């Protein structure tokens, strides 16, 4: 979910690796970021809507990744994927590093880009 720069790039790479992929975004124009040879499905809609998710094939999904710019939206969609659709692996982007642990406790694989980037910067500086 989320066809921003991160979502589009991730979709592109997974698609190139041969995975079957559906990308969801509320904004149709966001799909312009996908490469012309993208062979997955682009699905326009709200990923907190169970019906939309069902139509997008969520019941068959092996993994769900929420990477919109909105922490709360990512957390809600990811929990729907995990708790309601029972998707085995659910990853979500949570900018607030303090909340990363909270959502991890709810069965999600929460990743804070803030924390990752800070670690990377620190390693570069010290290494």
């Amino acid at each position: 979910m989320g066809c921003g720069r991160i979502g589009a790039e991730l979709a592109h790479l997974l698609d190139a690796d041969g995975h079957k992929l559906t990308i969801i975004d509320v904004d149709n124009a966001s799909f312009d970021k996908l490469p012309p040879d993208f062979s997955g499905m682009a699905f326009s809609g709200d990923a907190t809507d169970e019906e939309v998710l069902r139509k997008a094939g969520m019941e068959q999904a092996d993994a769900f990744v929420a990477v919109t710019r909105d922490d709360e939206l990512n957390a809600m969609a990811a929990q729907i994927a995990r708790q309601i659709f029972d998707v085995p692996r659910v990853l979500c982007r949570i900018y607030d590093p303090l909340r990363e642990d909270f959502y991890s406790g709810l069965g999600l694989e929460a990743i804070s880009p803030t924390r990752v980037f800070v670690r990377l910067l620190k390693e570069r500086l010290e290494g």
Partner: protein
Amino acid sequence: MYVIVVGGGDLGHYLCKQLLDEGHEVLVIEKDAGKCEHIEEELGDICLCGEASEMAILEKGGISRADMVIAVTGEDEDNLAACQIAKQKFNVPRVIARINVPRNEKIFAKLGIESVVDIVYLVSEHIKAETMLFPLIRLFSIRDRGLEVVLVRVGKNSPAVGKPIGELSLPLGSVVSSVISHGEESQIPTVNTVLREGDQLICLISTENIDLLQAIFKES
């Protein structure tokens, strides 16, 4: 009580005022600085400007000693996040979320937030009551008891027309507390009160029996 209100829009603002009038300690968390300023001008120094689902902001607002968190922003995902963190991370005893999209009531319940207020549903029921075009209106629900107060109209040729209340097979546990006849004062009915077409009844009934009640008064 110490109550934290998340969202300082019109609803949050009004709610804070009411809570303060009742003597409660209130903090409102609102991300928009303009809205914060507006509230503080009227209600004093009760605003914390920031994102209510950020841990640091919640901690700054003293969430660990809050008795209640009420999340009333216009974004359901924000209300969910604030309530989940309050309840599951900080053990706030009571959390209440506004929902703006009716389908989210079930989702919130599955994700551990049972106490929700569905704005669209509530407002539409009130508008329906004003139009007088609907046979049954849900006025108020006592959610944790599974009870509702409804206003039901005796439809044309319905099974109830011309019958005393005592002869109706009302669902078990339901009470008719008031009968409002056109052009007359409302009355507290007895078993002998005879119903006429167009009478309106205020009933207390369990939520699961609403369809049965509706069948008794349905136009046919």
